[in-house]
């Protein structure tokens, strides 16, 4: 093994505004809960190297803006995602009700092997719970999603959510279901392809240079 990681998986985090997408990203990449971080207006990303079956995998995570008005724009970031974390807030049913729309986008805009994980966030606010575990669990089952409830605040299940997704993607890779092409969101690290930075902008660079 010549690199600290052998694969790069691209993840996107999607869901309504305020469900805790950015907090999940920060908790996972920095082990920090930043309660008052500004709304994401655009797309942020972070990376972390993880171990799956003793393989080092670099996760490249794109955190998108959840506002309805950006919907059309954020769609461009789905392309090439190996994993999609679909987040709702267990204390706000409205965010749960919107899942179908998000899921439709995710299904339409990613490839069939993209692993989609449903995350019910803010698990720490048990008192304000508005969506039961059972209900969401049934929804996940119906739609073939893996499901976990997490708290970006306490960190509970945050690691799990990201790693479980990675594990499933990796399994897909091993079973040969997924092509190792950059656009599939999975890149195998090797000497000729070590570009580990997001390539949306670079792809399009040629377009706007003219």
């Amino acid at each position, binding site marked *: *093994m*010549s690199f600290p990681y052998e694969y790069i998986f691209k993840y996107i985090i999607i869901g309504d505004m305020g469900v805790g997408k950015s907090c999940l990203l920060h908790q996972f*990449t920095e082990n920090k809960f930043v309660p008052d971080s500004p709304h994401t207006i655009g*797309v942020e990303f972070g*990376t972390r190297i993880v171990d799956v079956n003793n393989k080092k995998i670099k996760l490249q995570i794109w955190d998108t803006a959840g506002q309805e008005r950006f919907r*059309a724009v954020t769609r*461009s970031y789905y392309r090439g995602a190996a994993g999609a974390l679909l987040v709702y807030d267990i204390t706000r049913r409205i965010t749960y009700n919107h899942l179908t729309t998000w899921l439709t986008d995710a299904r339409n805009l990613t490839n069939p092997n993209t692993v989609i994980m449903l995350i019910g966030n803010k698990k720490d606010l048990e008192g304000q719970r508005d969506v039961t575990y059972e209900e969401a669990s049934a929804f996940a089952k119906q739609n073939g999603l893996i499901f976990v409830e997490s708290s970006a605040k306490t960190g509970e299940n945050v690691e799990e959510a990201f790693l479980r997704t990675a594990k499933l993607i*990796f399994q897909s890779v091993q079973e040969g279901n997924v092509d190792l092409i950059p656009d599939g969101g999975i890149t195998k690290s090797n*000497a000729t392809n070590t570009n580990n930075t997001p390539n949306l902008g670079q792809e399009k660079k040629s377009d*706007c240079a003219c």
Partner: protein
Amino acid sequence: MSDTTTNNNSNSSVTTPVTPLVLEDENRGVSDEAIEASLDGLKHNTLKTSYTVLNTNNPHIDVNTQWIHNKLKEKEPEYTEKKNMSIFLGTWNVNGKKPSEPLDLWLKDPQMTIQPDIYAIGFQELDLTAEALLLGDTTRSLPWEQHILSSLQGDYVKLLSRQLVGILLCVYVKREHKPHITNAMSDIAAVGIMGMMGNKGGVAIRFSFYNTTICIINSHLNAHLDNVLRRNQDMRDIAKNIKFITDDGKTINIYEHDQLFWIGDLNYRIPLPDQEVKDRIKKKDFYNLFLQDQLYTQMKSGSAFEGFQEPPISFAPTYKYDAGTDEYDSSEKKRTPAWCDRVLWKTAKTAENVGILSYRRHELMTSDHRPVSASFIIKIKIVIPEAKSRVYQDIVKELDKKENDSMPDASISSNMVDFEEIKFMTPVTRQIVIENIGQVIARFQFIPKLDETSLCKPWLKISPIAGMMIPKEKIMLELTIYVDNLTSQAFNVNGESMDDILILHLENGKDYFISISGVFQKTCFGNTLENLVRYPHPIRNNIPIPSDQKKLSIPKELWRIVDYIYYNGLKEEGLFIESGVTKEMELIRDCLDSGEPFTNITFSIHSMAETLIRFLESLVEPVIPFNMYQQALDASSSPVSCKTLVSHLPAVNYNVFFYLISFLIEALSHNQENKLSPDQLAIIFSTVFLRPSPLSPQSQYPPEAAIVKKRADLILHFLISKDLL
């Protein structure tokens, strides 16, 4: 170690991924083997790099791995525990004898308060037969090995033994330690007759005890008083020739161990007269005797066993006795007594030195040598896998953080730019400031949205569209909205709202969305005749009447302009020839759109006249529609054809045409005052009545003179023959 690794690999290939069991496993973090494997991989890689530079063209990655490796080593104390373990090293030249007396005096020394965790027992001259030397027969070792094992008190198991002719090394460990010993292996080096036979030489055994590596060498070096240099050379040859090849193909030498022990009949002598030696022994003056010892002097001068240490000797020389007696050699040869049998050690710089428990000789009389033993305390490093995994995770996390921190970052003064009111043909510019708040150079550029090719809507201009900032630097971006004839239709006719989202992309970093909004003031300019006749009320704050309701016959704005000129300027000299004033024309336009009367503003008649021309020019489609442009040119030579053409105009267009021609004819009737000629008017108005579609090739170049004439002719027919309408 090797077993564990193999197990792991096979596990991974049959893993079922989403069982809670696996998840728990992950919670515990990365396994020790995994870390080792990746770090081992690193070393290989370093090797490979030096050979195949082409294959590894990303030094950055290697640096990362090296960095992790170094950090992990640096933080070793955080995940290792130290434990004291004792090792007993015994050496005996048995002079070819078979076991005949109990070994308790040697191996079970009553003065020893603890049971050693490890026994390393070395023999020399175990087998002096030719078979052993020539055929490699090792059967003679068996009785000795059995004899040792039965003499060990406590639950010991044999780890490994290795024999080279008469040189035998056996390592025993307490049964409880066996599972923690890994990578046990042995090697031999012969330096005897002709430099290769096994009558002299060394055998070595190495192993890892938890995470401490130990290597033991038992050797028999060349004999005789004068052979000092030869013995030094033997030692170096043995040290050089003994190599261990680990499972993953790495070769390690004896010095690559935390603790290295060298025992055996090293055969160094004391170069003093026999009697003097014996006298000093009698007086127990070992100190002064030792100062003459060849091994001591060789080590002191750095000629042999460099870096090795020896516990202080406080016992009489162990060679040479008359077997079975306490008498030194009484034979003819009268060999001078010597400390042939020794125990030395060398601790790696990175490891903690041993503690000496004892260094003694033992009164077994089977041989012409007395056995010798030394016991030491070794600090064994025990890696706590959970702790190591945690430290490893922390290091990787630190690296991730560094990487995340080294991404460019910028702040943007506003994500939302509201232009408020935007008027036709009136540019408005807003500024936003981006600042590099990261630690690296930030390159930015605007990028198009998915499936789009342009960065923004056509009525918006961004400047600059790309740039670079050093940390803390700010750059001002200018956003300008300008709605002209070409872009106004979207708002005037199609009722689109004025907004857009821009994507500002930081190279290797995040993307920012910038929302643009504005309210376009609807205007009769840049509009269509068809649309305008659906506004009986001022266009600005009203919506068109439904298409099935009665429309105006001509746009009321057109009527207002013409009406004004008719009453106020028909006799003005230079009408339609002189230019208007831009500011005044903006005021007039405002009145037209808002329904305000012209009486509230002041302007010259020429501004109103030019407004008429500009109004017609701004129409999305001219009075003679694009699809009739070519027909019109073709018809221009014949008044009758022109009449036919005009009769085919859409209703509103026909009305407007009729209305304007009538007006122009009226204007011409005052040519005494206004000095207008039909030719002038025909030229001026033909360019706005009749033009090619902006999408057509004709519109790319200024029209040829012949075309200009044809256009003018068409209008001229109507101006000079009143009955043509």
